[in-house]
Every structure is written in structure tokens, then in C-alpha cells.
């Protein structure tokens, strides 16, 4: 072994971490270990994903044919409000947070997060905040029913009385505090706890996206927390921040909400961009194409995302159209850079279509379809026609389904061996992928046409015979495939846990530091670290400078022949 590839042992800590409790329920309730907290985040947010999905399924059942069948208009309003709230606040962001919790300390070569107890506090605030929101269903008037955006004056106590709306506000505020604390923690970890040699431009790109997202959270989340408390003051204390009768301004709420809300979309999307940016090089056997361009594109997306908020408000007629049209069109450029980079990473590579890669490619397709309708909506003239129609619903679901669902499954299949030491079943995973891919296109592709035909969103009913019936039926039938796909994933978890096949420490021949430690990693993460000389330290450790294979080998026999250096 050449000296450059020597592995340096880390001495064990003074007061070795033997005092973390065991695997019992108390152990999980009181843990401060970033890996356990990460797994808790992933599990909890997946549970919320299932809840949000069930609410969506109820809506699609109602919309399968004209007329009111299952739920009344009032209940329907609650369904779409809580569906949007759960998916945005309780599923997508926390799922990314969960992956980041598990991975960022491993990626930078640190033993834990910078503030482990604060990390636990973030998780518990998120859980209780989520439960507070959902418990609105138990109140006499039901849960909040003014949409996940909570626009005033609809959300004031004249039009939306009842405790459900207040619980929505206070619950979301708790999850907002949780996200802000996590952002502080992640930034401190990356700034202060990087291993020797792990310079900023050697950080894994997932961790880079989390750095950028943390900045966005620090700028955006305090704004929504403030707006929510202003709304609560309006509802409970007659404060008139947003009521014209008292000298307030309802449009101000929209500005505050979307100053948070549009960065929020990228706070959801960027970490999942990071996930596929980690996965595609591994399964293409190539380094990522244009590492620095991806970093710069990530920073640019974040920067632009802070300046596009009022494109949600074109139809108010009270904003600077040109400014927001321009910035919104511009943001497509750095996003395009990323897509080119993913494609060129695959170009000429020796592709392996294991489940994570299948999902990563599925992500590119689904996200691209959603992304392409974005610049259309950035054009003021077009937007006025399709505002508040199913065209917008289709656009945002393609974008968010691509990122938060397809890329999430890519990440879960990819890192499951690191989480638990065994892989998820490949066969079931591939069937699940095709069910999800076909199902989500059946659900959301027809909604573009529905929107262009003028069908407004957020209505429980629609007239018969004006071109809405068949498309809605298709859209509802596709939901069954998506539900089956999610069910299959749960079956896959159960089956692979019952008969676990040890995956080894590095089943995919990864590049980044998490693959240099055991699966699952020890409490303090690394017994030893390889030297960090590039963005791919584990790759460098596997291959000597003259192309000789030094370490590793894959678990499956059919890949053992992959001997030449990519």
C-alpha cells in the first residue's frame, strides 16, 4: 500500500460513548446520536407521507366522477389544506432533514452533529408540531380549511372560525422553529467539524446542497414564523395586520408567505438534487461532470429563489410583473446546468441500473416535465389564463413528485444498507418503481389538459359533460398505482428486515466517506478515516495511483468482473 493511502487510526475518545442507552424505546426517545435521529426523521416523515397520500386518495375518489359522493365541500377543503400542509411541512422538508442528519456528519468525517442535543430538540419539535396540525381534525369544526397557503382574508376568524385554523398556525410555527434549529446545526457542523483535508470544494455534493439550503432556511423560515404569529394575532387578538377594515393589508400576507414559500420549494428540491448527484456518478462509474459548476448552480438557484416569490401573485395586479417574470425565467438556467451535468455524468459511463439509479433517472424525467412548465407559468400573459387551475396543480406535483418522492426513493434504496446493514429487495424495488412512474404520469399528465380547459383547483365537484369527466377518472385511477407502489415499499422493508442479507460496508462501490465506515456505522462514526485528497476519498482509497485495485470488491458475484478503473 502506498503511503498516500495509509489509513490513520483515530484514537478512541476519552470517556468513550458507552453511555448512550440501548435500543429500547427509552433509548430512542432520549437519543442524541445523529444517525438515530436521522432514522427517526426518515421514519416519521414517511409516516406523514402516507397520511398525506391517504388524504390525496380521498380527494381523487371524490373527483373520480361529477357530483358529491364521499365528502362534502367543507371536508374537501380540509383535505386539500392538510394534504398540502403535511406534504410540504411534515414530509418533504423533514425527509431531506432526516437524510442530512444521517449523512452530513458522515460526509464531512465528523463523529456527530455540532450540537447533538439541539438536533434531538429539532426532531421532537417537528413531531409535536405535526401532531398539533393534524389534531385539528378532532376539533368540532374540523381541521384548517383555507389551503396550505393560508391566504387572508379567507384565513381570518370571520371566514375560518374554529380552533383547527389556530392549531394549524401554532403547529406550523413549531415545525418552522425545528427547521431553523436544524439549519444552524448543519451549518455549524460543516463549518466547524470537517475532517482534515475535507476542504469546501471536496465536500460531497449532497452536503453542499444542505449548506446552501441551510442558508435559505435561515432567511426564509423566520419570515413565515413571523407571518403566522401576525395571523394568529389577527385571529385571536383582533390585531388587523391583514384586515383592510382595521387598516391592514391582505396582500402583505401573500408577500410574507411567498417570500418563504418559494424558497421553500427549493428548500425541498435542492437536497434531493443532492441525493441524485451522489447516486448518478456511483452507478455511471464516472466522476460527477463539472463539480464546481454544480456547486455554483446550487448557489445560484438559492440566490434566484429568494427573488421570485411574487410570481405566485401575478393576478393580484399589485406587483412588478417584469421583475418577477425575469427572475423566474433566469432560475431555469442553473437548474438546466444541473440536468446537463447529470446527463453528461452518465454519458459514456458504464451504467448499472440498480434500483437507486432507476429512481434517479425517473427523477430526471419527472422533474424535467414539471420544470418545463415552470417557464411557461413565468410568462405573465399565460399565467393569467391558468392561474388557480389544474395546470398549476400538475406543474407543482411533477416538480415535487420528481424531487421529494422519486429522489427520496433513490436515496432510501441507496443508503438503506448504510442505515441498517442490509439492502432492500431489488426485484420488489424495480416493480415499485414502474408502478410509481406509470401511476404518477396517469394521475398528473391529464391535469395539464384539465387546467388548459379551465378546471379550477380546490373544488370538490365539477359539471358533467364539459370535457372534465374522462380525464378526472384517469387521474383518479392512477392513484391506485401510486398507492400500490407505496404499499410495495412497506412490504419490501418488512421482507428485507425479516430475512436480512448483509450488504457489507460498501455495496455500491461509493465515493464518499460514509462508505468508508461499517454498516451501520459505530456510535462515533469512524474507527479510522482514509486520507482525503479529492471529492472521492473512498474511490481514491479503492484505486491506487497507478490504477491497481487496492480494496473493496462488490457483494454480488456478477459485478466482480468490474475490475477496470472507470
Amino acid at each position: 500500500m502506498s503511503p498516500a493511502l495509509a489509513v490513520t487510526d483515530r484514537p478512541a475518545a476519552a470517556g468513550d460513548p458507552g453511555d448512550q442507552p440501548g435500543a429500547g424505546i427509552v433509548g430512542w426517545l432520549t437519543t442524541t446520536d445523529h444517525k438515530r435521529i436521522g432514522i427517526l426523521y426518515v421514519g416519521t416523515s414517511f409516516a406523514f407521507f402516507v397520511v398525506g397520500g391517504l388524504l390525496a386518495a380521498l380527494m381523487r375518489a371524490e373527483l373520480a366522477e361529477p357530483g358529491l359522493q364521499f365528502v362534502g365541500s367543507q371536508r374537501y377543503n380540509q383535505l386539500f389544506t392538510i394534504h398540502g400542509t403535511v406534504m410540504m411541512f411534515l414530509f418533504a422538508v423533514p425527509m431531506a432533514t432526516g437524510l442530512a442528519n444521517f449523512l452530513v456528519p458522515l460526509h464531512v468525517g465528523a463523529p456527530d452533529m455540532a450540537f447533538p442535543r439541539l438536533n434531538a430538540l429539532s426532531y421532537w419539535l417537528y413531531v409535536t408540531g405535526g401532531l398539533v396540525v393534524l389534531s385539528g381534525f378532532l376539533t368540532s369544526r374540523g381541521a384548517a380549511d383555507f389551503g396550505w397557503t393560508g391566504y387572508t382574508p379567507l384565513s381570518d376568524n370571520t371566514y375560518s372560525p374554529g380552533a383547527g385554523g389556530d392549531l394549524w398556525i401554532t403547529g406550523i410555527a413549531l415545525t418552522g422553529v425545528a427547521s431553523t434549529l436544524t439549519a444552524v446545526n448543519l451549518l455549524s457542523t460543516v463549518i466547524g467539524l470537517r475532517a482534515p483535508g475535507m476542504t469546501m470544494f471536496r465536500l460531497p455534493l449532497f452536503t453542499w446542497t444542505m449548506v446552501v439550503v441551510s442558508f435559505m432556511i435561515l432567511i426564509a423560515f423566520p419570515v413565515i414564523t413571523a407571518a403566522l404569529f401576525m395571523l394568529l394575532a389577527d385571529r385571536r387578538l383582533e390585531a388587523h395586520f391583514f384586515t383592510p377594515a382595521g387598516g391592514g393589508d391582505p396582500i402583505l400576507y401573500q408577500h410574507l408567505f411567498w417570500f418563504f414559500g418559494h424558497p421553500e420549494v427549493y428548500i425541498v428540491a435542492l437536497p434531493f438534487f443532492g441525493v441524485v448527484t451522489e447516486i448518478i456518478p456511483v452507478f455511471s462509474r464516472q466522476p460527477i461532470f463539472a463539480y464546481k459548476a454544480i456547486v455554483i448552480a446550487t448557489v445560484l438557484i438559492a440566490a434566484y429563489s429568494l427573488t421570485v416569490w411574487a410570481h405566485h401573485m401575478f393576478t393580484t395586479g399589485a406587483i412588478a410583473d417584469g421583475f418577477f417574470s425575469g427572475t423566474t425565467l433566469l432560475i431555469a438556467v442553473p437548474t438546466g446546468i444541473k440536468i446537463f451535468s447529470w446527463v453528461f455524468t452518465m454519458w459514456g459511463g458504464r451504467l448499472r441500473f440498480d434500483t437507486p439509479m432507476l429512481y434517479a433517472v425517473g427523477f430526471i424525467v419527472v422533474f424535467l416535465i414539471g420544470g418545463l412548465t415552470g417557464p411557461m407559468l413565468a410568462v405573465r400573459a399565460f399565467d393569467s389564463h391558468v392561474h388557480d387551475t389544474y395546470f398549476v396543480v400538475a406543474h407543482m406535483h411533477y416538480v415535487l413528485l420528481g424531487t421529494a418522492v422519486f429522489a427520496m426513493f433513490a436515496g432510501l434504496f441507496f443508503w438503506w444498507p448504510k442505515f441498517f446493514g442490509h439492502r432492500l429487495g431489488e426485484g420488489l424495488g424495480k416493480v415499485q418503481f414502474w408502478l410509481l412512474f406509470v401511476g404518477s404520469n396517469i394521475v398528473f399528465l391529464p391535469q395539464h389538459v384539465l387546467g388548459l380547459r379551465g378546471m379550477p383547483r380546490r373544488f370538490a365537484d365539477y359539471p358533467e359533460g364539459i370535457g372534465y369527466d374522462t380525464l378526472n377518472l384517469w387521474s383518479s385511477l392512477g392513484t391506485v398505482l401510486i398507492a400500490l407502489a407505496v404499499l410495495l415499499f412497506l412490504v419490501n422493508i418488512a421482507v428485507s428486515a425479516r430475512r436480512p442479507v448483509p450488504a457489507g460496508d460498501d455495496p455500491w462501490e461509493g465515493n464518499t466517506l460514509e462508505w468508508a465506515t461499517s454498516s451501520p456505522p459505530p456510535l462515533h462514526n469512524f474507527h479510522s478515516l482514509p486520507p482525503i485528497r479529492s471529492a472521492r476519498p473512498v474511490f481514491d482509497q479503492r484505486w491506487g495511483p497507478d490504477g491497481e485495485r487496492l480494496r473493496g470488491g462488490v457483494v454480488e458475484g456478477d459485478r466482480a468482473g468490474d475490475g477496470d478503473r472507470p
Partner: protein
Amino acid sequence: MRASILSIAFVGAWLVPTGVLYWILSDEYAGIVLLLLGGVAMFGLAAYLVGATRGTPPGPDDDESADPGAGTADGPVPVLRAVPPASVWPALIAAGAAIVAYGLAFTPWIWLPGLAFLALALAGYARETSP
């Protein structure tokens, strides 16, 4: 550290001119305030980090040829930071915060005791020390 400070300053350097441009193009105040204050906040953070790291040489985490044994940004000794023990306080703080959240939606008779519970949990969190 230098790259971290630069990236923070970049966000500030982006937001302030954008805020000025927005001021010129729009007569809407919320956006002007949000953009400019966001930029000022980022410059403040960058300035703090510049001050906090003034005079310290680049750590091994910024050294491209540092060996794994060279320690972390916290010091030159390659000692693993002790992993903190488990703590019950984070979950209790969250429980207290949830009671306050319910109280704000219903009645002071819930949020007043909730606030007391939250204060106790915060005190427990603050007073907890590593063994």
C-alpha cells in the same frame, strides 16, 4: 473557513443590490424590506465569522494535504470529541412547546401551565452537564 465566509457574504452581496433594483422597479414595501434585511443579516453573519477567525491560521480542514490524524478545526489534537450522553430534555421541551401551542388555540388555562412546564424543561436542558 474562508470558503464558508465567502459563500455567506455572496448571499448578502446578492440580496442587497437585488433589493435596490426591486426598490427601483416596484413600489411595494414588503419585498424591499425583506430583501435588504436578508442581505444585512448575511453580511452580519459573515462579519461575525471574519472577526471570530481573525488571526487564526487555516485549520487542517482547509488544508488540502492535511492527514486524517491532523485533528479538526477545534484543535490540533486528533482526539475524538466525546459523544454527548442521551438526554430526556429535548423531548420534554417539545412537549411543553406543544402544550403552549394548544393553549394559544384554546385558552390561557392551557398555555399558562404549558409555559411553566416549558420553562422547567428549558432549565433542565440548560443545567444538564456531561458526565
